[in-house]
Each structure stands twice: as structure tokens, then as C-alpha cells.
């Protein structure tokens, strides 16, 4: 599988050469394959945002190099050359609806492509297909984005990123503050962009159930370092370690752990509700002994 992104021994120091210098990334190496769905997890301040900001060249490495779709960024890359990176890497920040500003939905979505010199007609075309992609009805095009619901506003903001036709999409806690229905809509959209539109998705999240349900690869960060990479099953196999990283287990693993603590012999912790229900029904059928 081709790699979309690779980090080679990347260190990022904020306020370098000052007494406040602080390493936010320390010697990070990572490969993100093309068309993968990668979740990046870690407690607040572990370096997740700093990491993803290198992928769309909002930050340059202090040391080491980042390769994105064949282009290399090092500390020596001039700022002028960074714009080309961003065109292929869409970034949806937390609470992206705060960045909406145009009079109408369609104008807001067209802003990005136009900023990259796309003609009005082409930008409009791109905006229309982006609206379709995120499931916004065409009738909303001429409405003010500020008259929409929270979930709809967020989809307008995401459409604005998708209108640039990025190959890589970074989602930084895209569902924060949404109700369960809005949450599911946005996550299903991410999955669709990955499955049908062949995009490489990078999800920064605190929600371990989303990690289990959507991600093919999980990267765990702590103190600016990547401390583990693997599948969800590999990452959550050691609950003690997960807690030490100040992370949570997926809901089913957490519930299973409580059952284990009260003496029900669950064995390996299940990650999904279906796995847990299967395990319990087996135990009931077998008539297992609880160890008191």
C-alpha cells in the first residue's frame, strides 16, 4: 500500500531559541497509508494537534521531515511553498462552524476553491457537489448559514473543506458538542468519504467507541511521542496501560472490566456491544463459575 503521509524523526519545538522553548513533538516517526482511516488518540496536551498541523503544513518541523503525497516539508521549506500542500489536505478544526462567515451557504463553501484561483463557475460546481457529499439539500444553498441547526452548520463547514477536493481529510474532534444523531451523521460521512471516495481520513478523537467502530489504524500519543501504533484490538488489549495514558476504554470494554472486577470470568475484553453480549450468552449457556 502506498503511503500518503510519513513522518521521519520529527521534532517540533514551540518558541524555539527562547527560555520558553518546549518540545511539543519529540522524534516522531509514523507512516499513514493511502486510503487508511487513522485515529489519533492521547490525553489533552499530548501533541495530537501539533502532529496533525504538520500534515497540512500549518507547522513546519523544527527537526526531521514530513512527507505528504510525495512532497517533503522540512524546517527549510519556504512558507510560499506550503500553500500547495494545503490544497490536498483538508483540515476540519474543532467547532468549524465558528469559521462560517459568508451571507449564504453556497458562498461560504465556494470560498476555499476561489481562494485557490478556481473560477466562479467551477467553484460553484465544486460547492454543489460538496453539498451533496455531506447531505445538505440544494434548497439550503441561498440560505444564511447562521439560520441552520448546529449539525447542519457543521456540515456546511465540512463541505467548504471538501469543495477543495482534498485527498487527505483531517478531522479534529469533529463531533464535539453534537447530539447523538448529529454525531452519527458526521461519523457516517467520514466513513463514506473513506469507503466510497477513497479519501485518507485522520481522526483526532477522545471517543474510544468511534476508534473501535471506524478506525483501521490507531496512533497513541503521550508527551509529544508516539507510544503505540496498532489496531483498536491491539491498543485496548491492555486496560492498565490505557488508563496510564489517561485514556478511557471503549464502553463495552469498560463495562466488561466492571464485570471482571465483580468476578464474572469474561477473559479477553470485548470491544463492541455485540462481542460482549455474545460472551455473556456463552457464559450463561456454559454455566461458568464466578470466582469470588
Amino acid at each position, binding site marked *: 500500500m502506498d503511503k500518503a503521509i510519513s513522518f521521519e524523526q520529527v521534532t517540533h519545538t514551540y518558541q524555539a531559541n527562547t527560555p520558553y522553548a518546549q518540545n511539543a513533538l519529540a522524534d516522531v516517526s509514523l507512516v499513514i497509508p493511502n486510503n487508511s482511516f487513522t485515529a489519533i488518540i492521547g*490525553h*489533552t*496536551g499530548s501533541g495530537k494537534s501539533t502532529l496533525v498541523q504538520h500534515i497540512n503544513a500549518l507547522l513546519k518541523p523544527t527537526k526531521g521531515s514530513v512527507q505528504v503525497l510525495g512532497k517533503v516539508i522540512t524546517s527549510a521549506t519556504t512558507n510560499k511553498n506550503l500553500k500547495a500542500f494545503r490544497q490536498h489536505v483538508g483540515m476540519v478544526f474543532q*467547532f468549524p462552524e465558528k469559521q462560517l462567515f459568508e451571507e449564504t451557504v453556497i458562498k461560504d463553501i465556494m470560498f476555499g476553491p476561489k481562494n485557490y484561483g478556481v473560477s466562479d463557475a467551477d467553484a460553484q460546481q465544486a460547492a454543489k457537489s460538496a453539498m451533496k457529499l455531506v447531505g445538505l439539500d440544494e434548497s439550503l444553498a441561498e440560505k444564511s448559514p447562521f439560520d441552520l*441547526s*448546529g*449539525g447542519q452548520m457543521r456540515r456546511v463547514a465540512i463541505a467548504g473543506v471538501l469543495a477543495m477536493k482534498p485527498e487527505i481529510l483531517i478531522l479534529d474532534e469533529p463531533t*464535539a*458538542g*453534537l*447530539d*447523538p*444523531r*448529529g454525531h452519527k451523521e458526521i461519523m457516517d460521512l467520514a466513513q463514506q468519504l473513506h469507503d466510497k471516495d477513497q479519501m485518507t481520513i485522520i481522526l483526532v478523537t*477522545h*471517543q*474510544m467507541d468511534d476508534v473501535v467502530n471506524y478506525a483501521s489504524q490507531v496512533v497513541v500519543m503521550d508527551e509529544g511521542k508516539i507510544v503505540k501504533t496498532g489496531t483498536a484490538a491491539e491498543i485496548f488489549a491492555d486496560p492498565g496501560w490505557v488508563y496510564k495514558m*489517561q485514556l*478511557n476504554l471503549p*464502553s*463495552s470494554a469498560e*463495562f466488561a472490566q*466492571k*464485570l471482571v472486577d*465483580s*468476578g*464474572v470470568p469474561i477473559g479477553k475484553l470485548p470491544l463492541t*456491544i*455485540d462481542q*460482549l*453480549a*455474545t460472551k*455473556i*450468552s456463552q*457464559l*450463561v*449457556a*456454559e*454455566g*461458568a*463459575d*464466578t470466582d469470588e
Partner: protein
Amino acid sequence: MKDIIQVKNISFNYADQPLLFDNLSLNVHEGEWLALIGQNGSGKSTLARLIDGLNVLKQGQIIVDGLLVNDENILDIRNKIGMVFQNPEDQFVGATVEDDVAFGLENRQVDREQMHHIVERSLKNVNMWDFRDRIPANLSGGQKQRVAIAGIVALSPQIIILDEATSMLDPRGRQDILNLVREIKAKNHLTVISITHDIDEAAGADRVVVINHGKKIDEDVPDKIFANTEQLEQIGLDAPYTSQLIAALKGKGVNLNQQYLDSERLIAWIKQLVSNK
């Protein structure tokens, strides 16, 4: 039990928009933890704003601790209520954590000496005294909410309204903040209204009011509300985790004649089932 807030037959709409509340009534008992649940846009936050006099009613009345919400009483009412919003960034004004907590007291012209004591006590209350010289913007989400809560505690309100106050936090930060509010509530005999779409947050309440499209569609103890999983799903909320597990078990032929149990009771039931065979 005394009703500390009475919402009586209120109607309200934002300019040029349809009625959000049409003849809504509900009461909040003094000293209880009331969860207001409903999906985004259901009117939960607007209700909080009406109680705090931030929006003006079209019809009906709201009474807070015996005072009618109107222009004349509004300052007294706001002194009784502390609100914590979803995004703490929206509520910081001070250059340092300490200044920020002092702001509300300065506004109320509290004597300087006394102010220092109150700020110290409030920050210690939320375990943020060591951070008093820090810039609020550089704190984590959970720390920011702690500072916001300290600012409220400093003003010793009778009622705290949490408006999606934990929805930006990670699961651990969320639990920390809820535990903190629970502690402060017990210590200061407060009434807490938590506006949320997080079912697990609502599970810890004494009572739950379900709002949908501006209407109160249900009102009961959490056990009863959560037993009605169809209703929760209809209005776009998740069933609690334990209900989802009960349903999944039913699918595998393990039947419980109830749709909801809290974690503790469900664990006890599973344990008994497994060992009885």
C-alpha cells in the same frame, strides 16, 4: 418540597421564527439535580436563557426563588443563578485565573480584602489555586471549566445551570467536572439544572425532564425515563449503554424483563445469571 423555579405556561419565539415554546410549564425543586435532556435545537438552552432573563418571554411567567423574572428583579435573580456554558473560552475576561475569578466580585463591589479570601477559597474548592497566575487561554478544557465554576462559586449562587458544560471535555474530564459540581452542590446546598444530551450525565440526576421541539414530553426519575428507550431514540438521543446491552443480550436469547437497569444492578443480574446455571 419548595419549587425554587416555576415555569408557568410560557410561550417564546426568536424574531421571525416559529414558536419555540408553546404553553410550557415545569418546576424545579429546591436542592434537586434536574437534567433537561433533548437533542440540539430542542429549546433546552433557550429555556436556561429565559430563566436567567437573557431572553424575554412572549407569554407566561417564570418565578425564581419567589421573584418574577422581569426587568426590576433581574439583577437579584442573576445573583441567585450561576451559569456554566459549553465553551469556557466564551466566558473568560481576566488576564490570569485569579483575576478571572475576581471579576464577578469586583462587579459586585466586594471589599478588596474579602475578595482575596473568596477567590482563594473558590479556587481551592475546584483544585485550581496552584494555577492562579496562569493565563486562562493556556489551560486544558477541563481546567478552564474548573475556573469557570470557581468564578460562579465565588458569587455563592443558589442555583447552578450547566449548559452542555461537559460536552467539550474528554470522558475523564467530564466525570471530574460532574463530581466537582456534585461536591459543591452538597457542600453549599445548591440546586443544579444540567442541560445535556449525554444520557450518562442525566443518569446521575434526581429527576429528568425531556424536551422535544419546545415541548415537555416526559418528566420522571431517570429509571423510568430510560426504561422508555423507544422514546429516547425517537427524539434522537441514545439509549443508555446498559439498555443497549440488555437489547443485545435479548438478541442472543438472554432475556431480562426490563429495558433499563443502572450499571450496578445490571452487573449483579449478569453475575447471578452466570453463576446460577
